[in-house]
């Protein structure tokens, strides 16, 4: 009577512990801010002395570690590098947000190349975490428009190369909302339970700045307090905040969300699925962001990293970006060749007035970052 339940219990405890380990490992592995590089670090340093153009591609060897966003590890997004340098490899580790990527680099990630977005670039330069890029070694550099090049320049030096870009605006279902002409639709109580804001403090400050015509680069304490009150009142109007585009798309598709802060990738995806959606041109202007690649300061794989970035800008890779993910490429040759109607609509290629009124994302200071993210956390904590 006594021994049997105990034997069972022992077995049960063992199983539970195993289950716990499995449960902890799943979310932890992708979100743990202290997690170091998931894969092995650089193996063989590339030949750093020879100019990029002289070594035959098949003699270039080495292993590059890339810290990127989930999905960009797909071979489609670095196919030129993969095909050209058959004897070099690229492995990937992932970040879920700009803050996450910054945190991982801060924690000593051995990634040779990393992928932040406009708004989150200044810190890397200020803290000496990013290597200056010798653009003379990039054969595809001339395909990048100067306005894009400028986004990666700090103190007169090129620290980042632009790669992907897109808009942020309001995505809405045309079967519920006839037209959207202002960002303030995201704060409209009329659509309670059918809105979805991006789960991001700086994003919320941006939207409020557009609506109230604040200068986004110099938000005062009073303005920040007003913004906090505004989004605290907005919170119950959401179905839910969204953190990843893949969370948002099914919510709009299933008719639960009618209007949302969104990137145009979500718009193009839903359009492709035949969902009645539109992407607003608000009177305050759309927001635009640019993704860039930087090279970690002190990487032993500098040469290979430069080759990787150069091939990132090459035509096949750059074509896949709009074709598969509906995001713009920094390669202007590729963008000029787009013929697909829904893509043209997504990028506003046929409507130059959209780009004219677009607001580009300014770089945050460390103080703004901390104040704005704390504001947003307080909004969420007050619910």
């Amino acid at each position, binding site marked *: *009577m006594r021994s049997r339940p105990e034997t069972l*219990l022992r077995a049960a405890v063992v*199983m*539970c512990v195993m289950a716990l380990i499995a449960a902890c490992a799943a979310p932890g592995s992708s979100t743990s801010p202290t997690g170091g590089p998931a894969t092995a670090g650089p193996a063989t340093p590339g030949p750093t002395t020879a100019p990029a153009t002289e070594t035959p591609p098949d003699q270039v060897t080495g292993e590059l570690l890339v810290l990127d966003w989930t999905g960009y590890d797909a071979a489609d997004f670095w196919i030129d590098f993969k095909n050209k340098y058959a004897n070099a490899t690229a492995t990937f580790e992932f970040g879920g947000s700009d803050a996450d990527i*910054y945190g991982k680099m801060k924690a000593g990630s051995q990634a040779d190349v990393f992928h932040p977005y406009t708004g989150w670039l200044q810190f890397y330069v200020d803290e000496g975490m990013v290597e200056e890029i010798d653009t003379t070694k990039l054969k595809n550099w001339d395909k990048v428009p100067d306005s894009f090049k400028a986004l990666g320049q700090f103190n007169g030096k090129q620290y980042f190369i632009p790669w992907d870009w897109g808009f942020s605006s309001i995505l809405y279902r045309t079967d519920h909302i006839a037209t959207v002409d202002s960002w303030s639709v995201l704060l409209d109580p009329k659509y309670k339970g059918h809105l979805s804001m991006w789960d991001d*403090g700086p994003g919320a400050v941006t939207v409020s700045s557009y609506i109230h015509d604040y200068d986004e680069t110099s938000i005062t304490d009073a303005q920040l307090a007003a913004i906090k009150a505004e989004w605290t009142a907005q919170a119950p109007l*959401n179905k839910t905040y969204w953190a990843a585009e893949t969370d948002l798309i099914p919510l709009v598709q299933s008719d639960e969300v009618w209007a949302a802060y969104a990137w145009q990738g979500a718009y193009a995806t839903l359009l492709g699925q035949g969902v009645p959606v539109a992407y607003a041109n608000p009177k305050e202007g759309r927001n635009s962001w640019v993704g860039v690649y930087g090279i970690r300061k002190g990487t032993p794989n500098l040469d290979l990293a430069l080759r990787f970035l150069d091939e990132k800008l090459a035509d096949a890779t750059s074509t896949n970006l709009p074709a598969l993910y509906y995001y713009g490429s920094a390669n202007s040759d590729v963008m000029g060749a787009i013929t697909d109607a829904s893509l043209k609509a997504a990028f506003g290629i046929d409507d130059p007035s959209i780009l004219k009124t677009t607001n580009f994302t300014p770089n945050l200071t460390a103080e703004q970052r901390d104040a704005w993210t704390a504001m947003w956390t307080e909004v969420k*904590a007050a619910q």
Partner: protein
Amino acid sequence: MTVGAGSNPGAPTGLGVRPSRAPDPRRLTFLALALPAVAALALLIVVPLLFMVALSFRPDLRGELLSPFVPTLKHYEQVAETFSYWRLLGISAGMAAIVAFVATAAAFPLAYFLAFRAGRRAGLYLILLLVPFWTSYLLRVMAWKLMLGTEGVINSGLSSLGLIDEPLDALLYNRNAVVVTLIYVWIPFATLPILAVLGRIDIRLHDAAADLYSSPWQQFRRVTLPLAVPGLAAAFLMVFIPTVGEYVTPLLVGGTGGSMFGNIIQDFFVRAANWPLGAALSVIMLATTLVLVVVGLRIVKPRRLLGI
């Protein structure tokens, strides 16, 4: 429980062997066996915990992560001044208490059945109880999204029965959804400590109670339940403590209004790159949970729990 008993088949087994009477080689064996676990705990829990406490006094993330810094209390001040954080901590502790109470209450009949009524099939039933753990925690929580969603199992079931016209919105993306999901997740865990205690109850006590003309209810109320209290308390704490800091479940089914304290901590690490503030919040949560557990143990009289 009987260290080294296997090496000496003639020795009496069971609790009669006291560590104090054990010869020195056994104690050395015990120490050698305990060392890896103690070292792992120190290295993987105590050191990171100390690192977290140190981080909470760091002014900001600028500079090398392991570089020296001038300690500051500013993050604790910022938390102290922010009412919404404390309110959320209170809500999280309240949710954890509800989840722990309901999960323990629901687990008790299960454990009772396994210990006294399941007979020969107890092993099979226990395995069935644990089957959900063979799949990922995330998958099980996602399954609740399918249950509770606007087009989910409950809504489509109710509407096909003609009971509702519009789908019920209130099922998913709020704190109730978080509580329901967490209760579901914890019930099998809560069963185990209760089962451990019930399994140790001498069945002859029940016979003795029956001989003394006690009704089945009296048997349960005066014999089984008091003896099960340590298991119930263990189950409650085992659920309560991790639930205060829960963040994955609210992230998936909590929606805008369903955040818990763990979510704002996670935000400061993953969405804000403000680790020092996140660390300060973690330290405060840890301290609060400890205080609550200690106070709770005082209220339910620890001596009675440990005296058995």
